[in-house]
Each structure stands twice: as structure tokens, then as C-alpha cells.
């Protein structure tokens, strides 16, 4: 018993010293797994999607061994700060508010926010005036949640926030929500699959084009540079295009 505890203690110590090593040969990357087509779980509970393919390509370029773990969206940034992993590749939008806590690499894709509505919806467009009195859903702790709350909410809409995008989509499909705000490509993907019978795209929200970057801790300057270089490299050598064509018919970089 005594020895087992001692051994466990040594293991923990060994692991912490490993992650704090300067020149990392192995890094742990977190993604979410509920944001198709960027990241989702396949039938074997393994992460897949654009974010995952990009991560693997980047790790290959940086010549490090990457372990990709799934983490709930709400706890993503706190867990990064607590050194549970070294980077987040989960379609995280680069925002000033997040930059106070963590650092971002250069973007690896760009997306506007869009709105999806039921097919028989009477909402005309994505302006704030049209959303008055509507219940608008979004995933919590995201840029779209802030938009739903601060922009639509202030104009008289009821913002409802969900732990995952899937749950917001489910509530749009079963009629609890009048609209859902999310990254455009996520809604496009959903409307092609599960949401194709119930819902349609209303349109992009003007002035919301934003960049998704890889989140890392502020002190990991070196890792940031290596990621930035790797992003440039995969864009330059066509790897990015190849991955992109698996998911999208247009350029999202």
C-alpha cells in the first residue's frame, strides 16, 4: 500500500516535470469533439475532423509526437492554464477577452457567424431588429454566445446558451428555439446532415468575420513560433489545401 502511494507520487512528479520541459518532444493537444465538421467523435469515440487533421499535419511538420485529448468546451481554457495539455486546436476564435488569459498562434481558418432557422421561420434577416422577441440559441463560452447575449439579447431576444453546439441544434430542430447562431461552416455542415429536414440557413451576420487560432499558454513563446512556422509550411506546401478539400468546397484559410 505504502509503496503503491509512493510509486503513484513519483509518477505524478515525473509527468509534471515532463510537461514543463522546455524543448518538447511530445505535446498534448486538446479538442472538443462536438463541433462537426471541425471536431467530432467517430463511432469508436475517437476524435476526427478538420481540427484533428490540421493538428496531425502540424505535429508532423514540427516533428513532435502529439497526443490529442477531448475536453469539454467550458473547461478548455482553465485546463490549458492548469497545464492539463499544451495547446487547444478546437476552432477557438481569437478574441481580445481570451488574449488576457492565453495566447494564440496565427489563424488557421476564418469564418463569419451565421444564423440558422426552422424552414417555416418568419424571421427575415440576421439584423438585430428581426430577432426581437425570438429565442436565440448558441454554445456557451463562445463568440456566438456573446453575440446572442450582447447584440441580440440587448435588442429584446432571449439568449439561451448550451454546453455544446449539438444541443443547441437539437433544440432548434425540435422547435424550442427560433434561431441558432454559430460559425458558418458548422451550421452548413449540420444543415447538410441532421438538420436538413427541419431548418435552413438565414444568412451571415455582417461584420463578424473572425479568425480561429491555436490556443497556448502565454509563457510558451517557443511553441507559438513553432506552430506559426508549421501553419505557414502546410499552407505553402499544399497539405492545408488537401485537408481542406476533404471537408469544404471553398477556401476557408
Amino acid at each position, binding site marked *: 500500500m505504502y509503496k503503491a502511494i509512493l510509486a503513484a507520487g513519483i509518477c505524478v512528479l515525473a509527468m509534471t516535470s515532463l510537461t514543463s520541459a522546455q524543448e518538447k518532444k511530445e505535446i498534448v493537444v486538446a479538442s472538443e469533439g462536438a463541433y462537426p465538421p471541425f471536431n467530432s467523435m467517430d463511432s469508436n469515440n475517437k476524435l476526427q475532423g478538420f481540427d484533428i487533421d490540421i493538428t496531425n499535419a502540424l505535429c508532423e511538420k514540427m516533428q513532435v509526437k502529439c497526443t490529442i485529448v477531448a475536453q469539454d468546451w*467550458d473547461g478548455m*481554457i*482553465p485546463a490549458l492554464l492548469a497545464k492539463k495539455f499544451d495547446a487547444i486546436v478546437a476552432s477557438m476564435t481569437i478574441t481580445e*477577452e481570451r488574449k*488576457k*488569459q492565453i495566447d494564440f498562434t496565427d489563424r488557421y481558418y476564418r469564418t463569419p457567424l451565421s444564423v440558422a432557422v426552422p424552414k417555416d421561420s418568419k424571421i427575415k434577416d440576421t439584423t438585430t431588429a428581426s430577432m426581437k422577441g425570438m429565442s436565440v*440559441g448558441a454554445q*456557451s*463560452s463562445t463568440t456566438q*454566445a*456573446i453575440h446572442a447575449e450582447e447584440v441580440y439579447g440587448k435588442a429584446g431576444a432571449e439568449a*439561451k*446558451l*448550451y*454546453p455544446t453546439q449539438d*444541443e443547441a441544434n*437539437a*433544440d432548434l*430542430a*425540435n*422547435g*424550442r428555439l427560433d434561431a441558432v447562431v454559430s460559425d458558418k461552416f458548422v451550421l452548413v455542415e449540420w444543415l447538410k446532415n441532421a438538420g436538413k429536414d427541419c431548418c435552413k440557413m438565414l444568412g451571415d451576420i455582417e461584420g463578424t468575420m473572425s479568425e480561429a487560432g491555436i490556443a497556448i499558454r502565454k509563457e510558451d513563446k517557443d511553441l507559438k513560433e513553432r506552430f506559426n512556422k508549421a501553419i505557414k509550411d502546410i499552407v505553402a506546401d499544399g497539405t492545408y489545401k488537401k485537408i481542406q478539400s476533404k471537408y469544404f468546397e471553398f477556401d476557408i484559410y
Partner: protein
Amino acid sequence: MTFRDILGFVIDLDLLDRYGWRFLEGIGVTAQLVAISFTLGGALGLLLALARLSDKGPLRWLTGAYIYFFRGSPLLAQLFLLYYGLGSLRAFWTDLGLWWFFREAWSCALLAFTLNTAAYQAEIFRGAIRSVPRGQREAAAALGMHRAVTFAKVIFPQAMIVCLRPLGNELILMIKASAIASLVTIYDLMGVTKLAFSRSYDFELYLWAAVLYLLIVECIRRLWAVLERRLTRHLRAGDLPQPAQRNGLSRVTKTALKPNAQ
């Protein structure tokens, strides 16, 4: 120095200005959600307990199955079953004219919590009712009292004394369990905390939430002490106030008066 300045030593005033009101609203939502579901659950639980104690087999068996299911599966699963599972049958509920109920996250959570706590409270009531000695019932029957009157006037008041503390436990557990309502878009205390945290990433907010939950539980603890004193007042009716000079005596004197008392 104002009260605000003193408060500033303990908590972040900027956060308080931004989210203080929302936290108060969150407490209100949590309190309402738990108070309503606990009360309705109590009424349902009492009925279930009576059915569970009935001499009719099917009734016993059905309530047994209900209690088995609701105590045996996680509240979160029950809430999701109700909210997303039953919520997806929109056409069916619209036909029945019940969609307004299942549309709202609030009523779904209320229903899930009520059904869940009813199962636990049923078992508490059942145990308490069975703890009342058989002789009480026999005595009431000998006096020619109707079964309903016997229950209302003899059995139930005595059972309440037994089940008061376990019910208090259940209420406290419900308050903490109600935090999962935040997962279905309800801005209860936990929902507000998560919202505020997602903007500020300040762990202090979770500490606020913990302290606020603690305060609610403390209020209940005190309320329960009052309730217990009231329910057991007849047991203390014979107690006379302690003679005053007894307390005034020193320990040495007491030992001298009663050498064997330790």
C-alpha cells in the same frame, strides 16, 4: 471607510458590479426551482409512500418500480430524457396541447426534479410511517376511529417527527443537485456562475457560488431546527426549567454533591 471598501478586501468589486445582480437572480431561480419541485415532490412522495404500503399488490409493485427507476438512475439522465427525449416529440405534444409545457426548459427541469425527489421522499415517508408502533393504530381502531382520521391525527404527526431530518437532507441534496439545471439553458445560480466565468475566467466566481450555496443550506439548516422544535414541543411539555442555582454551582461543588457523576 464605506461598506464597499471593506467588501473590496474580500471580493473583486469589478466582478461584483458586472455580475452581482445576475447572481442574486440566479439564487432566486435556484430557490424557486427547488422550493416548487420539493413541495410537489413531497405531495407526490406521500401518495407514493401510501401506495407502497397498501395491501393491493399491483399498486405496491407499480410504485416500487417507479421508485426503483428514479432512485437508480442519475438525475442528469432523467433531465436529458425529459428535455431532449420527450422534447423531440413536438408533433405529439402539440396534438395533446402540452407543447407549451415541454417547450420550456424551466418546466422540464421542474418536472424532472419533482419526479426524482418524489421517489426519495416516498421512501423517507414509508420508513417514517412504518416506524410508528403498531399499537398506535390498534388503539385508534379500538376507539372506533376511521382509518383516514387515524392516519391524519395519529400516525402522520408522529411519522413527521421521524422523517423531518431525512427530508431536510433530501432538500439540501436537491439544492446542490439543482445545479444541473444550468445544462439545459436555465440561469440558476450555477448557470449564472458559468456564464460569468466564461467571460472573465476568474475562479473567484466559483468560490462565490460555493459560498452562496452554503448560505442557502445554512438557512435551511436553521429553518429545520425551528421546525423540529415545533413538531416535538409536546415531548418537551413536561420538562421543567432547570433550577437556577444548579447552573450557578461550580464543578467542584457538583462533584461533591454527586461523587459518582462523571
